[in-house]
């Protein structure tokens, strides 16, 4: 978009290509292009630079979502965060990063090994627990995840832990029995500690296409999401799928994952995110 002297069909096509290839999707791209065309027609946007600014501002607005209000833990109660999402998006690694961050802030943390299904899932979380200096509450592979979560909360209450991070098995949102398992875990948490889980965060992989919308819709419907974490933004994918999701479902993006190490987590920054789309 740089160095273009006038607003013409070619410029609009360039913009359309940038938006589409950033995974913004048909609906959001169409709406943004129409808004821009309206501004051009009204002679408000008469230079490419103004057009680009207006476009960026509009996307930022779509991403501007207020935090979802929810209960806070009482005295001596832990802040309970449940991390969910489809297979391989980065849940377990993100929990390690969140634990590291909480420890840096001087908080006490435990990890709950809620993925009792996948091979070496518990071992993977344990390695992270050892590296970050966080205890991992776990049972044998194959045990009931709800039972492990219940254990985790009991332990956290007994030890007056500040933050509980619950890892869950990856699952496709289209598998109703697996979604029911998640809802059961949620109920167990609620019964054990009213007000919890204080956060239910959906992890989305930045390389995902429009299926992310379906993921967000179904996980949101099942559990009520309080936030989204967008991982693997250190790749070449722009993660534009969150634009439509934020706009449609009003779920805030909490953090972004930018690598595989424990400190590769950043708070979400809308202007930076939008700038990255335009390269």
């Amino acid at each position, binding site marked *: 978009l740089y160095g273009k002297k006038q607003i013409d069909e070619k410029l609009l096509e360039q913009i359309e*290509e940038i938006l*589409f*290839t*950033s*995974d913004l*999707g*048909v609906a959001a791209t169409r709406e943004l292009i129409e808004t821009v065309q309206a501004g051009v027609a009204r002679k408000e946007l008469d230079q490419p630079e103004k057009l680009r600014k207006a476009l960026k501002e509009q996307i930022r607005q779509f991403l501007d979502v207020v935090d979802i209000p929810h209960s806070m833990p009482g005295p001596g109660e832990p802040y309970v965060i449940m991390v969910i999402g*489809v*297979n*391989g*998006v*980065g849940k377990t690694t993100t929990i390690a990063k969140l634990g590291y961050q909480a420890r840096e802030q001087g908080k006490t943390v435990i990890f709950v090994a809620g993925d009792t*299904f*996948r*091979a*070496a899932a518990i*071992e*993977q979380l*344990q*390695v*992270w627990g050892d*590296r970050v200096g966080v205890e991992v509450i776990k049972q044998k592979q194959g045990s009931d995840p709800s039972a492990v979560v219940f254990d985790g909360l009991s332990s956290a209450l007994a030890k007056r832990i500040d933050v509980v991070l619950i890892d869950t098995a*990856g699952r*496709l*949102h*289209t598998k109703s029995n697996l979604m029911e398992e998640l809802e059961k875990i949620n109920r167990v948490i609620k019964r054990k500690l009213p007000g919890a889980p204080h956060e239910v965060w959906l992890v989305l*992989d930045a*390389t*995902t*296409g*429009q*299926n*992310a919308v*379906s993921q967000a819709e179904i996980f949101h419907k099942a559990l009520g999401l309080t936030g989204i974490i967008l991982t*693997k933004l*250190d*790749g*070449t*994918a*722009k993660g534009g*799928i969150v634009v439509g999701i934020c706009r449609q479902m009003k779920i805030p993006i909490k953090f972004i994952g930018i690598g*595989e190490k424990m400190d590769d987590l950043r708070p979400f920054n809308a202007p930076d995110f939008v700038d990255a789309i335009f390269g």
Partner: protein
Amino acid sequence: SLSDKLARTFKKLRGQGKLSENNIQEALKEVRIALLEADVNYKVVKQFVEDIRQKAMGKEVLESLTPGQQVIKIVYGELTRLMGETRQELALTGRTPFTLMLAGLQGSGKTTTAGKLALHLRKLGRHPYLVPADIYRPAAIDQLQKLGSQLGVPVYGTDRKLRPEDICVDALSKAGTVGADILIMDTAGRLHIDDALMAELVRIKEKILPTEILLVADAMTGQDAVNVAKHFNELLDLTGIILTKMEGDARGGAALSIKAVTGKPIKFIGVGEKLEALEPFFPERTASRILG
């Protein structure tokens, strides 16, 4: 669905016996939208729609079809043709032990797919040997060892202090000791833009000269699929693609994007988390799914 949209598009244009410039234009817009919504890459869509326009121009609408159906027939036929007309199995020719190298982005399903391939090959009467060449991810070696013991398939005892290429060379030298005739090498997930890690894959390739080099890609990947596939293919000259997590509701446009940009055959699809969940790739099924 696309068929409904095309039916509406053509309804406005009456008595069309031939597909002409103007009635095609509107139909192609709908096709373009359907493909973009299915995550087919923007540039791939552009090229594809243009090819369809060429093929459809002047075509007679067959007696039994409406113009909309005629267009769909052309699109569906072209999609199927592009994604691979003939079923392609693993090309296990030459001397044993054969070697399969799996590569791809983080979390795409390589380790699980390695296990699935081991089961698939054993059912075909082969003797697979699983080789954990991911020395980075916590419990990655553990994960493949667990899958191996679940299947009763031998797993090479990887020493994390060795470099992946040397692990693979040593595993190859030990294939005979476990009576294996095919090695399945699981590598660490990596970004295509990580030069150092991509160079590692090239080193493994150069030392092993794998029978097959397979890109394991997630079926729900969006526009970035072309960047990833193109780069892996340029550096490794892939022999095939495996698309995972295909049992979900992702439209799977990445299949077309990856095939279009690499020209390499999609050999298998992953359709679940269990080790039995590996199927051959059928282009017609993915074509109808992409069209929606």
